[in-house]
């Protein structure tokens, strides 16, 4: 492989990793606060459809991201109400959310676009090369000749790490997932923190979903997330609930998507099905490698019951 193809592969890796990174960082915050959300895939599909429809009707990319955020946040509130307030099982409600996500995005897409043959390509976020930086050999074009949502992850990841490990908010958040009763005894409402974390996660998954039709492709396709929400879930465990490692995991899985597409285009003798399942096989192997739950937040998945009730 020559320098140029490595560079192209790197560029594609970052592009494929971006939606995973958004969803994965959000889920990290949610899980740090003690709430596991299996419904990431649903959020992403809802975000993807909202963004596509918004650009289609308004031609405004920024508005598309804003709407994707608002709509997925609404679903985040519903998820939070069911799992935090009435303490429903998080896995079950997450599963329901996935079904609703697949259903509602597919239903509206067919009604508004597919059945009437109005499904057309939309405007997308264009590459925004950063002068000077993009001329760095090898890494320059890969890192600094991307669209704005990719750049967003460069800010998001360090920011997430700083918030989580260097601020009092981060301390409270981590405490909420480890020792919720200790946090509550400090006069901080665990329920509020968890609502915040869940809604934050839904917003980021919404952006990750929006990325697919308006930055990666220029079209919405039913089920276009293709399991990325689940891969993001695996990233969080593989990345040991640390934003920086989760980011690295995102790059790894992103590279499998990029490699898979590239090998398919290169027409190797490997059957295409093996290339298609590559991301899932790598995720599965990564799960096995990162086994053990010693680093998992202690109160993950457990509804918070106030003492003395």
């Amino acid at each position, binding site marked *: 492989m020559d320098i140029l193809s490595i560079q192209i592969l790197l560029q594609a890796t970052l592009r494929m990793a971006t939606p995973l990174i958004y969803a994965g960082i959000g889920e990290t915050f949610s899980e740090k606060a003690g709430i596991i959300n*299996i419904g990431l895939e649903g959020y992403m599909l809802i975000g993807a459809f909202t963004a596509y429809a918004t650009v289609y009707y308004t031609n405004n990319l920024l508005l598309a991201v804003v709407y994707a955020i608002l709509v997925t946040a609404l679903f985040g509130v519903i998820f939070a109400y*069911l799992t935090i307030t009435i303490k429903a099982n998080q*896995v079950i409600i997450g599963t*329901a959310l996935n079904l609703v996500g697949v259903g509602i995005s*597919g239903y509206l897409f067919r009604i508004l676009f597919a*059945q009437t043959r109005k499904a057309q390509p939309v405007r997308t976020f264009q590459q925004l090369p950063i002068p000077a930086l993009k001329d760095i050999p090898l890494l320059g074009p890969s890192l600094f000749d991307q669209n704005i949502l990719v750049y967003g992850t460069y800010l998001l990841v360090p920011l997430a790490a700083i918030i989580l490990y260097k601020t009092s908010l981060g301390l409270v958040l981590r405490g909420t997932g480890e020792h919720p009763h200790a946090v509550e005894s400090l006069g901080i409402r665990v329920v509020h923190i968890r609502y915040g974390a869940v809604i934050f996660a839904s917003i980021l998954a919404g952006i990750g979903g929006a990325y697919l039709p308006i930055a990666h492709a220029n079209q919405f396709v039913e089920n276009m997330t293709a399991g990325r929400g689940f891969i993001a879930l*695996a990233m969080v*465990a593989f990345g040991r609930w640390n934003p920086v490692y989760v980011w690295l995991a995102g790059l790894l899985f992103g590279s499998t998507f990029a490699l898979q597409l590239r090998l398919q285009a290169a027409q190797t003798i490997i059957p295409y099905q093996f290339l*298609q399942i590559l991301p899932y096989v790598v995720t*599965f192997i990564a799960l096995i490698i990162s086994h053990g739950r010693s680093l998992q937040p202690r109160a993950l998945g457990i509804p918070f019951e106030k003492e003395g009730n």
Partner: protein
Amino acid sequence: MTAKTKPFSFFRLINFFPPMLQQAIILPLLALALTLLISAVLLVITGYNPVTAYRYMWEGVFGNSRVFTEVLLKSTPLILVGTGIAVAFRCGVWNIGAEGQFYAGAVLATWVGIHLAGLPPFLTISVVFLAGFIGGGAWAVIPGWLKVRLKVNEVVSTIMLNYIMIGLTSFLVTGPMQEAKKVFPQTDEIVVAARLPNILPPTRLNIGFLIAVLVAIIAAIILFRTPLGYAIRTVGQNPETARYAGMKVNQSIIIAMLLSGGAAGLAGAIEVSGLTWRMFATISPGYGFDGIAVALLASNNPLGTILSGFLFGALRASSELMQMNARIPSVLFKIIQGLAIAFIIAFSLLSRKVASEKIADRAEAVPTTGS
């Protein structure tokens, strides 16, 4: 706080009914009713007449004997998959991998069904079923073993195994297992002796539905009337208690996964031996995922999956007819599934809360009135 009083007074009403009746019939029907109501609102917003839509659905189920038998055919895999998922969920294992297990069972059953010659039908079909059970069971035991040995999260691992199995199937039917003619991405037909007898010509109804009902009943007996079932349920409720009581927690989880995947694999085998007679890449339209809703709506009671499997089979079959006749996208069915799950869970939690408050009220009342 004021918002809380509303549902509570409502759930006080429901608590007049005995708990068993609540769990098995009242709450599921209530959840389904509210789901259909919300879906009706969605239909109105998107410019459809919900009355027409639901009428098409009703006709799609009870319109004539042909559509009704199609519903039973759709219910068959759902009851089996739902039963399997119920067993895993009862054991506290989140098996989301039934879709892959269905494929694994169907693949192995097809392979056996093609190559098994010279045996009488009953024996051939039994071997094909066994192959389906083993295929699905083995594909489920992998994440089960990884969970107990390496504490690998089964939700993510089973989902990844879905994608992997579906990809492998696609490879098999275009490669090593492709039909001799090498035209379509499908296998050759299974031998005649491996095919399930039709019980109601000219419809496509075969004995698969009866087998599914029988399996659900057997699963309920295992779960509620045997030491194994007791261990599975105890592990699901509290693994620490189970361990303390001397139960083999890890073993229970593995067996629960074996049964769970086995039921999904059996569903795959019945689909092949009863309907398609061959394997192709899209043999399941998502039965493995529907099974989750089936199990949850039945409160993870295998007997209840007979009803909820029929309900979702009816929804699936009739939503396809609704799409054909009224051009209402059949994916509406996914929304209905998701909402039904959320409502049944929310309702049972709220009614349980009201019930426990009632008990608390009584407990407080005792010292003042009684001794």
